[in-house]
Structure formats: structure tokens, C-alpha cells
């Protein structure tokens, strides 16, 4: 409401129109009750397309005029003034572009993919709200507004993951996503308020300034930064809070593409990058970030190796790559982390949308053991999926190669070599699971039941081709990217480059040897790892553990508290008092005939007791 101020219509300030357009689309769809209407998709796509156009304009203006920030009052209470405002800088401009572009393609794709669904208009309405929240999140110039958008992103993912709410599994997955991220959000909100407590403002740049001047007590800043990181771990699915992301596959596939690529999970990465100077000041906190990122990268990659559901492979792959991004942040290279976010966004959107195309073409099959040989039936999807897979595996000259290599160099520079070695192993696994998925789905013999498989319509393949094109060339922008962020160019470290290439290609070769040529039996390999394989297939029993905690601890405590409430507080204390009054009173058996007596007596007794107490008290 306050933001609809048409006086700020020049230069980069028009950026606010992007989320505003998306919110307008949501409001239109909901208020005109176009829940089943096809027009909903038109409104939504027009909104996000204009969002992208606004990005192009803002990008042009930004290169001329540089960063800008503006804010206006939301409300004031006492001395607390809460503002709504936006900051346009390198980070937010880049995110503005990635979000509007990926969301636009996903929405176009959805028109065909979701064609036969009921609540078609509602689906697009929530998409619009999702895009709007994410845009506000990246544009926000203060942490409270960021938190507001952060929670709205959570809501939208809840609504979209639970889109098929009649399915018990979908509604459970939605709930799990919301609650798991909410656990992180507890930390985020506490952290933000802790910063406010000292700084007296939510304004991000002011807080950073104060921190750099040493205005925070060390312990406060450390606590605040780590708590905020907890929020980032929840949203960006870092171990051990990643459990919601694989389950989020219950939502429609385009939703997964959106969540995994351009929204939701990158919010945490963005948040850490946004307040990166705070992490630098509270130095040891970056080590925490690096360790969490690294363990996430390895653990998730090992799970992705043994999954059989195509979407779950991709989901764990996302978790793993988010770990890489965190690792880059933890190694002090936020520009590199953002670059990986950028290349990964396109590659992952491409993979999910291709997986959706497979799903669409084969009548809903996602288990890679039931697929195979689809390359002839679905040539476009095959090509696009391969590009996405190779990009993620880090094969030159695809985008993923450059960003991964940059990360490896940053780790080598900023961290102990052990970090680097483990990261190389994770990258190696990344190659193996991508080639495994590619081979098992598209190569080999076509299963008889898949004879009917067919390529998807143009509305689906067009976004695939566009994303594939971008993934092919994304690496070329690297040097421009570094200039844009004013980051220094690394000298090429050939050892790192060689090891990183070896990991990618070695992984591909091994995967090819196992799954295509079958020189090595995958069963033998699995047997080598013994129980580890079993643990990995079950996500290291984290879900089981959490469920146990919920059933055996949380719910038991809840039951004890409510029994305590009924039996101790109510039945003993309340009824007991009543009952003893009943016993000591002599004519109270008439209570059966008229409760007013009871009331009157209680009142008189009460007045006497209290009156006497006060009387004595006064003396």
C-alpha cells in the first residue's frame, strides 16, 4: 500500500514494480475467484514477463547510475520506526534477473504441463505470489522486511508443495517443509532482533556499517550471525535441516524446478551473501558455514548416488550443490557462491523441467529402473537433459564447469586442503550420479511398456531449449560477472583445475563404465560399501530419527502437559478446591437444586477471606 507511490518512477527505483506486478496478479486471480480459469495463467505470465522487462530496464539503469536505496515508513511505535524499503545493488539486480527469468520459463512450461489440473488458476496465482515474495526478499533493504518476505516464500512453498492436497503424502510433505524451515526461522528472527537490540535499526547496510566499526559486542554478533545462519540452513536445505527438500517432490514438477532453481532454496545462500560482512567480522562463524556446507555437499551427494526416483536424485543433487555454495561462502568467496547459484539455477531448472517432460511423455514414470532408452522417443528432452546433467557434472565448457572450478579455487585459497579434498570427492560423486541418471533414463533398451512414450509439446520443449542454451554459454559471463561485482580475478591454479577436471571426467567415466558398459557391476560396488549403501538409501535414517523425536519426545511431552493441565491444575487444584468447599459446607447438598447458592456462598466466603487478608495486610 505504502509502496504504491508513483513518484518514484525513475532510474533503478522502478524495481519495486516487479514484485508489485506479481502481487497484483495474485490479488486479481484470488479476488476475481479465477481458481479454475485459464485466464489466471495469462495474468500471471504477463506479470512475471513485465517483471523481467523491468529487470532489463533496471539493469541498464544500474550500469549507469550505480547502487541506490530508498525506504519509507511502514509504522512507528514509541521509538521503534519500522520501514519498508529496497536496496538496488549488484546482488539484488542479479537475483532480480534470475528469479524473473526462471519463473517466467517455469510458468510458460506449466501452462501445458498443468493443463488438465483443476485449480489451474489458483496454481498460477500462488506462483505469482511466490515470485513476488522472492523478489521482495532480494530487494529488501532491511532485515525485518526480508523476514516478512522469507516467511511468505515459506507459505507459497507450503501451498505449492501441497497443491494436490487430497493426497495425504502431498499435504504431509507441505507441512514438513513449512515446519522444518520454521525451525530455522526461529533462529533467524532471534538473530535479527538481537542485531536490532544493539543497532536500533533493521536497516541492513547500517547494521553492517555498525558491525565493521566494532559497534557490536563480539558475543552478540557471533550469536546473531550463527542464529541467522540457522535460518539460512533451513531454507537452503543444509544438513541436518535438508529433510524437507526431497519430500517436496510431492508437488507438481514445475514447482520443484522453481523451488530448486530460482526461489526458496537460494534464499538462504542469498541471505548469507547479503550480510556477508557480518560473517567476516564475526570470523569463526565462516568456518561453521564452510563445515556445514561441505558436509551437506558430501552427504547429499552420497544419497543421490543410490536414489532410484529421478526427482529424488535431482533433489539430493540440489542439496549437494547448495552445500557447495555454502562452502564457497564459508571460504570467503561470496561472488563465486553467487556465480554457482546462477549457473546452478539454470542447469537445475533445466533438469527438473526435463524430468517433468519425461514424466509427461511416459505417463507419470519417475523410477529410473522403469525407464531407459528414451533418447529416440524424446530427442529434445534427451539433449536438454544431457546438457543440464553435464553442466552439473562440471564438464567444460558448460556453465557448471566454471563455477565449480571457481569454488574449488576459493576453497583452496581460503581453507585447509582437507576441505578441498573432500570437496573434490563430492564433485566426483556429482558426476557419477548425473551420468547414472542420464544413462539409465535415456540410454539402453526401451522398455516394452514405454513404447507409447512421446516428445512433449512445444510449450514444454521451448523453455527447455532456452535453458539449455543458457547453460551452454553461462560460463562465458564469468569474467563479466567478476567485474560486475568488482571482485578480483583469480589466477588460474592449474593443479586445482586439473584435479577438478579429473573429478568430473573421472566420475563420468566411472559412471559410464558401471551403468552403460557394465564392466563393473553396480551390485559389487554397492556390496563394497556394505551397510553404508543401506544407510544412504534411507537418507542416513535422519527422517526416522526426527520422527522418533516427534513421537517419543515432543508428543509425549505435549500429552504430559495437557494431562497435567487437566488432572493437576484442573481436577486437583480447581475441582479439589471446589470439592473441599463442598465437604466443609453443611448445607451445600442443595447445590443440586440451585447453583446460585453455591455462587453466592463462594462470593461471601471469598470476600471475607480476601477482606480479612487485606485487613491484616494493612496493619
Amino acid at each position, binding site marked *: 500500500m*505504502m509502496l504504491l507511490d508513483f513518484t518514484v518512477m525513475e532510474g533503478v527505483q522502478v524495481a519495486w514494480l516487479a514484485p508489485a506486478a506479481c502481487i497484483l496478479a495474485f490479488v486479481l486471480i484470488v479476488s476475481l475467484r479465477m481458481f479454475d480459469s485459464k485466464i489466471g495463467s495469462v495474468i500471471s505470465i504477463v506479470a512475471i514477463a513485465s517483471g523481467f522487462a523491468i529487470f532489463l530496464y533496471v539493469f541498464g539503469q544500474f550500469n549507469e547510475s550505480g547502487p541506490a536505496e530508498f525506504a519509507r*515508513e*511502514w*509504522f*512507528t*511505535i*514509541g*521509538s*521503534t520506526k519500522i520501514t519498508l524499503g529496497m536496496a538496488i545493488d549488484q546482488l539484488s539486480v542479479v537475483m532480480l534477473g534470475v528469479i524473473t527469468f526462471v519463473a517466467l520459463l517455469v510458468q510458460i512450461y506449466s501452462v501445458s504441463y498443468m493443463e488438465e489440473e483443476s485449480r489451474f488458476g489458483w496454481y498460477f496465482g500462488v506462483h505469482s505470489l511466490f515470485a513476488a515474495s522472492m523478489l521482495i526478499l532480494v530487494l529488501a533493504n532491511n532485515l525485518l522486511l526480508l*523476514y*516478512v518476505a522469507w*516467511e*511468505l516464500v515459506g*507459505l507459497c512453498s*507450503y501451498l505449492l508443495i*501441497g497443491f494436490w*492436497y*487430497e*493426497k*495425504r503424502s502431498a*499435504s*504431509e510433505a*507441505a*507441512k514438513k517443509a*513449512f*515446519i522444518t524451515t*520454521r*525451525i530455522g*526461522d*526461529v533462529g533467524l*528472527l*532471534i538473530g535479527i*532482533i*538481537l542485531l*536490532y*537490540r544493539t543497532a536500533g535499526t533493521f536497516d541492513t547496510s547500517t547494521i553492517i556499517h555498525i558491525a565493521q566499526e566494532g559497534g557490536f559486542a563480539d558475543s552478540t554478533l557471533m550469536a546473531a550471525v550463527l542464529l541467522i545462519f540457522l535460518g539460512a540452513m533451513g531454507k537452503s536445505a543444509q544438513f541436518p535441516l535438508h529433510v524437507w527438500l526431497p519430500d517436496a517432490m510431492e508437488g507438481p514438477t514445475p514447482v520443484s524446478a522453481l523451488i530448486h532453481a530460482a526461489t526458496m532454496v537460494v534464499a538462504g545462500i542469498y541471505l548469507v551473501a547479503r550480510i556477508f560482512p557480518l560473517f567476516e567480522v564475526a570470523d569463526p562463524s565462516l568456518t561453521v558455514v564452510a563445515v556445514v556446507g561441505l558436509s551437506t555437499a558430501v552427504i547429499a551427494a552420497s544419497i543421490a548416488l543410490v536414489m532410484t526416483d529421478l526427482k529424488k536424485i535431482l533433489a539430493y543433487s540440489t542439496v549437494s550443490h547448495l552445500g557447495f555454495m555454502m562452502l564457497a561462502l564459508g571460504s570467503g568467496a561470496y561472488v563465486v557462491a553467487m556465480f554457482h547459484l546462477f549457473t546452478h539455477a539454470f542447469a537445475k531448472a533445466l533438469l527438473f523441467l526435463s524430468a517433468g517432460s519425461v514424466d509427461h511423455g511416459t505417463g507419470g514414470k519417475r523410477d529410473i529402473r522403469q525407464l531407459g532408452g528414451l533418447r529416440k522417443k524424446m530427442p529434445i528432452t534427451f539433449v536438454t537433459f544431457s546438457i543440464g546433467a553435464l553442466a552439473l557434472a562440471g564438464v567444460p565448457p558448460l556453465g557448471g564447469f566454471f563455477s565449480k572450478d571457481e569454488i574449488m579455487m576459493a576453497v583452496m585459497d581460503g581453507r585447509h586442503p582437507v576441505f578441498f579434498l573432500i570437496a573434490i570427492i563430492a564433485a566426483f560423486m556429482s558426476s557419477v550420479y548425473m551420468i547414472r541418471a542420464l544413462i539409465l533414463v535415456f540410454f539402453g533398451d526401451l522398455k516394452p511398456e514405454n513404447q507409447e512414450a512421446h516428445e512433449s509439446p512445444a510449450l514444454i520443449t521451448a523453455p527447455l531449449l532456452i535453458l539449455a542454451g543458457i547453460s551452454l554459454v553461462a560460463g562465458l559471463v564469468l569474467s563479466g560477472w567478476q567485474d560486475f561485482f568488482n571482485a578480483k580475478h583469480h589466477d588460474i591454479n592449474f593443479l586445482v583445475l586439473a584435479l577438478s577436471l579429473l573429478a568430473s571426467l573421472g566420475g563420468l567415466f566411472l559412471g559410464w563404465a558401471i551403468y552403460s558398459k557394465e564392466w563393473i557391476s553396480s551390485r559389487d560396488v554397492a556390496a563394497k560399501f556394505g551397510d553404508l549403501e543401506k544407510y544412504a538409501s534411507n537418507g542416513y535414517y535422519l527422517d526416522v530419527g526426527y520422527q522418533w523425536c516427534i513421537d517419543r519426545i*515432543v*508428543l509425549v*511431552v*505435549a*500429552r504430559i*502437559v*495437557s494431562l497435567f*493441565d*487437566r488432572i493437576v*491444575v*484442573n481436577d486437583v*487444584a*480447581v475441582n479439589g478446591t*471446589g470439592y473441599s468447599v463442598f465437604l466443609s459446607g453443611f448445607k451445600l447438598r442443595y447445590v443440586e437444586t440451585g*447453583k446460585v447458592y*453455591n*455462587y453466592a456462598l*463462594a*462470593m461471601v466466603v*471469598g*470476600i471475607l477471606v*480476601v*477482606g480479612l487478608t*487485606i485487613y491484616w495486610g494493612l496493619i
Partner: protein
Amino acid sequence: MDNYLLISLILLPALAAIMVAFVPRQRLFEIRAISGIVAFALFVLSAYSFINYDNEVGGYQFTRDYAWLDALGIQLSMGIDGISTTMVLLTGIVSFTAVLISWNIEHRAKDFFVLFLLLVAGVYGVFVSLDLFFFFFFYELAVLPMYLLIGVWGSSSDFVTFIRNKEYGALKLMLYLVAGSILVWVALLAVYVEGDMNSFSLLKLQDAEFSEDFQRLYFPMFMVGFGVLAGLWPFHTWSPDGHVAAPTSVSMLHAGVLMKLGAYGIIRIGVDLLPQGAEYWMPLLMILGTINVVYGAVSALSQTDLKYVIGYSSVSHMGYVFMGLATLNATGMGGAVLQMFSHGIMTALFFALVGVIYDRSHVRDIGILEGLAKRMGWTASFFAIAGLASLGLPGLSGFVAEVLVFIGTFKDYPIFGVLGIIGAAITAVYILRLLGKVFFGPISEDWKTLPDASNVEKFSAGILVLFLLVVGLYPKPWMDLINTGLSPLIERVAGL
């Protein structure tokens, strides 16, 4: 008109009650029409006072005094400041929507509306009185009809392991509230005597300069006495049981407005008259309020009856009001007052919708209800919005209120702030569990024929949803009002 605004807020419902009493009981339409028109008029008048209160001038406005018993210094003195104006608006909204929801009551409808209107008159009376005697008089007027409303129109439940019949719920509620009232009355008389001005006037007594010992002795009586009505732990058990027994519209008014009377009393009389006492005892209120939040939320987690979940959620949410008040700073108290408004709207919406579901299915057990969203789209959407407001989702009123309470709490009590935020996360768990069980999943055979909310119910719930959204997105008008009301109070506390 401004001269008669506040008196008409009291007289309109009171006169309407008398009018309804003279209508033959078969004339259902006339009974409903009178109640409906009066409730709507009250809604308009409340909105008028909200819009026309002048923030620049501040203080008590629309004041009017009527002499009554000069010998004892009692006069009907009325006026509203920023805080009471907010509460007046809340009362207008909730009582109007509650009358709409009870439109179809047929069992002794006449008696129901007479009592209901009296209750509304009492509530308005409390919020506009500036005379302690009349404050208490209206306070009792608001509480007493509750007994009959629950006892006659309520419902009894058999929960297998224990039984709660409506008479038990009504009696317990009554005894509790009366016990609280006694504490308040004693403390009020003490203030009257100690003030030694032969006056019950709140404004005069503010200047009485009570001794510190006196303040410390009597503040807890206000705190606990009023606290009982606001659901202060451990005096809260009347509340869930009372809600379970009460009919829909009574639950709405009860949780929506009556519980706020208690919190309002703590601010208006406790803090305003006895600021030093308040300062001395506030740490205790902070502890109890935090227990309210966490204990209420954890209890709600394991409830299986819809009304118990909402009932315990009210206990939990009122905890934020106590926490905010206990901070004694503008941010926290502002959050507390906004939370009173926000929770009033939200919980009225909850109970209205539970009523809609119960009305059609005759079930409130969340283990049995399943997949209702398929058949009851409107009800499910509204319920989800109420739930999201309850778990503090930004964009809805609960967030603004709660975040202010947290900010205020962190100033002096960071640990309690942390616990409060954790409480909000537990709220998310029980709300989403409730939504998931009752509305999502496959719809079972039993519920495939349930009709959705009627137009009147949709209209009524829609008004409440509208306010949740407006306050959530554009809280400025509310915050400005609350600010004006709080600043003299904060100054008095700070000026010690």
C-alpha cells in the same frame, strides 16, 4: 453526535435488549432484525469513533460526564483514548459478526439475544468508563450473562476419558471470574479509600500519588484479578473448558472480547493507577506470560477436539499480551495492545468456523474429520487464513503484534523473548497439524455431502478476514492510535 457517541454505545444494546424482551418469542424475524440492526449500528459507531479520534490532540476524547451519586463521588464518566478506541472497534466488529453467526439460533432465541445484547452493553461500558465504580459495574454486567449463555445454549461433550458438561463449564467459568472480580473490587475500594478524594474518577485518582508500599501491595490483586479473565496461567483452566461448552457466538465474544477486558483492566487500572507497583511486579507477569505462551501451545499440540485446540491457542496467544505488557516499554506494550485486537479478530474467526463445521458435521474431533477442503472450500480457506494469522505469518495482523512484543521483550528480557519465539514455532506445528488433518488429505465418505458455509457465514467470516489482512498490511492507523494512548502511560512509568 460526538457528545452522545459513547453513551449510545452502552444504551443502544441495553435498550435493544429491553425491546427484544417485549417481542413475543415466536416472532423470530423481529428478534433477529432488532439484534442485527443494533449490532450493525454499533459496528458503524465504533468505526466512527476509530476514524474520528484525533491523534494530534490525544488524551481522552468524546468525553461526557453524568452525575450519579455525588455523596460517594460516583459519576458516569466516559471517554476513550487510543487504547480504548482500538478495543471499541474490536467490540464492534466481533459483536456484529457474532450476531450474524447466531442468526439461525432457534432454541429460546429471544432469551439468547436479550442476554447477548446485555453482554455487549457491558463490554462497551467497560471500555468507555472513566469511573472505577462504573467500570466495575459494567465489568460484572459483561461477565454474568455468560453463565446463562453457556449453561442454556452450550453443549456437553463426552471425551471418553473424561466428561465436560455445559453446566460444569459454565459454573467453573463463573466461579473463576467472580473470584477474580472480588480481588479487583477489593483493590478498587482500597484505591478509593487510599486516594482519599471521595472520588472514583480514574483521572483524579491518577494524581493521587499512592505510596510505594500501597502500590506494591495492591497491584498484584489487579494483576491476578483481571488476569483471571484474560486467561493468566495458572488461572486459565476455565477458558478452554468454557469455550468447549459455549455456543459459537458466545465463544466468539468470549475469547474475542471478554478476555481482552482483563488485559485492558491491567493496563487501564493496574498500570495507570499503580505504576510503581506495576514496575515491581512486571517480572512476575513476564514469567507467567511466557508460561502462558509455551504451556498453551504445547497443550494445544496434543488436543483432539477442535475447540480445545483453539481454546489452548487462546491461552497461548494471550500470553503474548502479558509479555508485551510486562515489558513496560512502548514497543512491547504497543505490540500487546495490537495483539489484543488481532487475537480478538482471529479467535472470533476460528470459533465462527469451528461452529460452521460442527453445525454441519456434529463432530469436532480432528481424528475423525478429514479432507474437508474438498467440500468446504470457503470454510477451509478462511480457517487457513485464521491459522496463518495465528502462527504469525507476515501480512496478517498477528505478525505485527507478535514481532513488536518480541522486540520489546528483547530489550530487558532476552531469554523470555527467545522462549516466546519458540512458542510461535510450536504454534505453527499445531496449526499445520490441524489444517492437515481436518482439511487436507482424501475426504472420507461421511463428509462428501457436507454443504459449505452459508452466505451469512461467509459474509461474517469475510469481515473478520478483511481486518486480519488490513491490520497485517497497513497497521499504521492502529499503531498511531495505540501510540497516542500509550505515551502518557509510558511517561508515567518512566517518570518514577
